[in-house]
């Protein structure tokens, strides 16, 4: 029983990060129909920036997390203004551009940080040890920060004027235009928020694991599985999908074999889509943020 609870904690921790990565993908896809394959590279850059800010400049973790979040948002804005805005209406062009951006970001990371894996020092030493369960303070902090970011994003979507506008755009784009919502501005905002969340996920990823210029690729793949699992464009579904994927991987690797960790997620994906083709929270033919 203790092991099962430990595995659930393990799963929720990694699942929360998956959800954070996937929220950005879901947000941008929901509004533009574009698949940004370079999203994982923003996670990677956020991780490297946090690493540099904490290890080289001695900034506290939370400060460097905010720095990465802001830099991620800025990067998203730059990507949108310089490239993606010209691909509106032709999502395939956006997809191809995002593949090019992967190479640019990976080469940039290799040039600046090299190819050796980088691992942060333990920023918060110690662990909670109770009833045979173990949770390091570093993991506990990232778990709390992830939950805060996800909850904050949820509140933003539901309570704020901008969040309501984004949801309206995703659900009924034409009606949103008629009521005077500036589409272009909100699409740019979705890119900013999505990449900011990705960079924040990268910050937490770097606090827990080693980073290399190539970690983004598998995180993008997981992000897409989570989005499809939860239902394309559904924020609640994305969060649920992320946590479910994390728990599924933890239980599979913990109780069956570690050699097929990625396969457990795909199995879950196939299983869910067999019964609910639109995903857990998705509605066929509609996007719901």
């Amino acid at each position, binding site marked *: 029983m203790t092991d099962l609870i430990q595995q659930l904690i*393990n799963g929720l921790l990694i699942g929360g990060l998956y959800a954070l990565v996937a929220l950005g993908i879901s947000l941008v896809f929901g509004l533009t129909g574009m698949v940004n394959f370079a999203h994982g590279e923003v996670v990677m850059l956020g991780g490297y920036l946090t690493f540099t800010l904490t290890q080289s400049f001695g900034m506290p973790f939370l400060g460097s997390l905010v720095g990465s979040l802001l830099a991620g948002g800025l990067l998203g804005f730059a990507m949108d203004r310089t490239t993606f805005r010209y691909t509106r209406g032709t999502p395939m062009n956006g997809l191809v551009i995002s593949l090019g951006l992967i190479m640019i970001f990976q080469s940039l990371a290799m040039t600046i940080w*090299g190819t050796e*894996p980088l691992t942060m020092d333990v920023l918060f030493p110690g662990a909670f040890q109770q009833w045979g369960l173990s949770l390091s303070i570093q993991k506990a902090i990232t778990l709390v920060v992830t939950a805060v970011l996800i909850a904050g994003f949820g509140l933003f979507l539901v309570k704020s004027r901008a969040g309501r506008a984004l949801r309206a755009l995703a659900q009924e784009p034409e009606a949103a235009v008629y009521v005077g919502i500036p589409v272009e501005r909100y699409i740019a905002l979705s890119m900013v928020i999505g990449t900011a969340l990705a960079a924040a996920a990268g910050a937490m990823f770097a606090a827990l694991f080693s980073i290399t210029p190539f970690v983004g690729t598998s995180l993008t793949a997981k992000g897409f599985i989570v989005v499809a699992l939860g239902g394309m464009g559904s924020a609640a579904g994305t969060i649920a999908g992320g946590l479910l994927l994390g728990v599924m*991987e933890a239980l599979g*690797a913990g109780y069956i074999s*570690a050699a*097929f960790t990625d396969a457990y997620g795909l199995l879950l994906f196939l299983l869910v889509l067999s019964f609910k083709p639109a995903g857990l929270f998705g509605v066929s033919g509609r996007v719901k943020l």
Partner: protein
Amino acid sequence: MQRVVQRTIGVVLAALALGISSTGVQAQNVIKIGAPFSLSGPFASFGQAGSAGVEMAVEELNRRGGITIGNTKYTVQMISEDTRSQVADTVSIMERLTREQKVAAVFGPIVGVLSTPGQEVTQAAKTIHFGPAVQWNALMGRPDKKYLVHTQVDDDLRYGAFVPLLVRETKIKSIALLGVNDATARSIMPKVAALMQKEGVKVVAEEYFERTTTDFSPFLTRIRSQKPDMLFFGYGDNFAVSILRQGVELNVAPHYSAFAGTSLTVPMQQALGKPVDSFIGMVANENLLQPLHDDVTKWIAAYKAKYNKDPAGTTDWAFSMYDYVFIWARAVQQAGTFTDSDKVIEKIRNTNYKGVLNIKIDGRGQADHDYDVGIIRNGKLTWQHVNVIK
């Protein structure tokens, strides 16, 4: 005017003719060697180290006067290629190097998933090929793999020396083995398991994980429930550091050990700062953290001078290439040819060489050499040099 034009044309033609002939002379005095490495992609840290090893050796070789065959002096030219860590790219590069460039030898790649398909091309083209892949252990001595030189210690020899040392140092009674799910770890782990059992150590778990794994906690939790005295894992710095950190957080075992495939510089430094009772790391070649030999110290100084940076965690993979360039050059001189691979390979086999490593190559082309083992106990790191060459 017409005369001016004629003169100009004449001068241009003469210059072109001279240029062509001088290029021809240059080409005659150059021996090309191929250096296909992962300069980008997931295996870039290994590839860049291997490429640096060849580059440094070639420069030094040419500085010493190159290779002399008869009365002719030859300069060695390194043809550097980036495999991008992709199998398809590696195979096409091998085709280009052997058929178009007609290189006299190929050095690399480091990683077996690339060099193993790559050697199919070099062996068909009768080109001498140097590489450290564990997968090559099974190829050595085969008649159709005559031109391979395996630049890493034979697994049986390596682990046959390491496992008794590890058990002697830690007095462990049980062990859990954890490796990346690839041919290298799948080849090593069963051998380690057998050697452990021979030493009276119970193997309580043998687990393999996917290369993309970053979160090891699910299966470390399971391994913890088996209560092993030691967690033995490998084999990249990225895996090693993460496993060590997460293993310590979960209290998986009191003792930790990581095996060859990395210099383990980064995990060693990490372990020093953690409450690990003991950590034993086996490096693939010589350690670069606290060199045990002057030759290694000098090599590090040369590396720093050339690349203007400190050696990284995986830089010791340069040693899987560096000395072997000189071994090949010596064989070419002795054979009196660089085009007849049969004659050159005969001069490489059954030889010894003392460079940065102390190397002995057997009749199959299998090169064995000494290696270092680092032991951390109570926050102190000491090194032992393991002699496998009798």
